[in-house]
């Protein structure tokens, strides 16, 4: 049986969800026998493959790079999973939204709180532009599965993966829906 092709990535996130993924502990060994991990920041992959079965995306969409990446991933993935509260709701990364647009936030961080030589960080082509609003992934592209939690406990991640590997629709219920 062909292995499920799994990709993961974090956008505007703390990578805590990925740490929780690693908390799968011994199950990771079983997992390795059931899936092919084709892209993840954990293994220095450089190119996102042309076709992926399941992508776990952690973090919210906060800058231009994230926006483009998310759209590219959506086009190449069968099942897109919003992984963790930042991806689902914006969470902490979206707490800058009420303050105003990108400029307000950059000014507060780099000018008002800056020392000598305070200036907006700028490196076109290298440093992506901040979006005026941080948004959850499903506000940009359609998402298929949602895993709440900050971070989602490993057991919850395992439950979803097992369902997806078994080609069942991933359904979480009860306390597995707890945010935070």
């Amino acid at each position: 049986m062909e292995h499920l092709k799994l990709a993961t990535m974090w956008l505007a996130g703390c990578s805590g969800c990925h740490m929780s993924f690693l908390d799968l502990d011994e199950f990771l060994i079983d997992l390795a026998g059931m899936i092919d991990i084709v892209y993840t920041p954990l293994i220095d992959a450089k190119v996102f493959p042309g076709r992926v079965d399941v992508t776990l995306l952690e973090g919210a969409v906060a800058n231009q790079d994230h926006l483009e990446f998310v759209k590219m991933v959506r086009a190449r993935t069968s099942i897109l999973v919003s992984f963790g509260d930042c991806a689902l709701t914006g969470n902490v990364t979206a707490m800058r939204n009420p303050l105003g647009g990108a400029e307000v936030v950059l000014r507060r961080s780099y000018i008002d709180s800056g020392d000598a030589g305070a200036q907006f960080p700028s490196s076109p082509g290298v440093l992506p532009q901040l979006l005026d609003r941080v948004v959850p992934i499903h506000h940009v592209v359609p998402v298929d599965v949602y895993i709440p939690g900050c971070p989602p406990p490993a057991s919850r991640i395992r439950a979803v993966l097992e369902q997806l590997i078994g080609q069942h629709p991933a359904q979480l219920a009860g306390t597995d829906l707890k945010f935070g």
Partner: protein
Amino acid sequence: MAAVKTLSIDGRLINARGDQTILEAAKEAGIAIPTLCHLEGVSDVGACRMCLVEVGDPPRLMPACTTQVFEEMKVQTSTERLRNFRRMIVELLFAERNHVCAVCVANGNCELQNLAERVGMDHVRFDYLYPKLPVDISHERFGIDHNRCILCTRCVRVCDQIEGAHTWDVAHRGVNARVITDMHQPWGTSPTCTSCGKCMQACPTGAIFAQGSTVGEMERNRSMLTFLINAREKKQWNI
């Protein structure tokens, strides 16, 4: 004394006093109807619409907390459309203000969070509004974070009806509505607040909190309120 009525809830025949609400009758029969703005011991306002049930045929949607039972009333508490609507109400609340469970003092002890689980909300299908809302920690013991407030007005009713101070009320309209202290002033400057903490006990979310508690530490002692009410109304001084 109101006469006893027989009614059916979810197909079960139950008895209730004629002056009881559907919510009270259901609770006595062990049938759980979700609520948010209802607080045992203070008046009901029918504001959150979570407790809407279907009554009669063709079914009318009525709030269980304010609707009195009548003889041969037929009530359905959990039809598909009711479950749909309840989920939408919770989603609307999450989208309306900034509810960040991960960093909230009430994380794990929050009625809104519990409701989200109960209605099966795994994500919010509405636009998040991200309003800019203040945090007031001028009071020496408590604070209010308006980002977490759902305008259930339980604090208003508790302070008015149980403490008798009426420090809290509501100002403005629609999404701009806000709970305010006295004449819309910082809580710490309120001349009417008695610092009794009942509003904090009554608050379903992490909006009104005790200073000094950090993420996930806000545990409430709702039994304190029930104790007071039992003491006053039924003259029972021990639980």
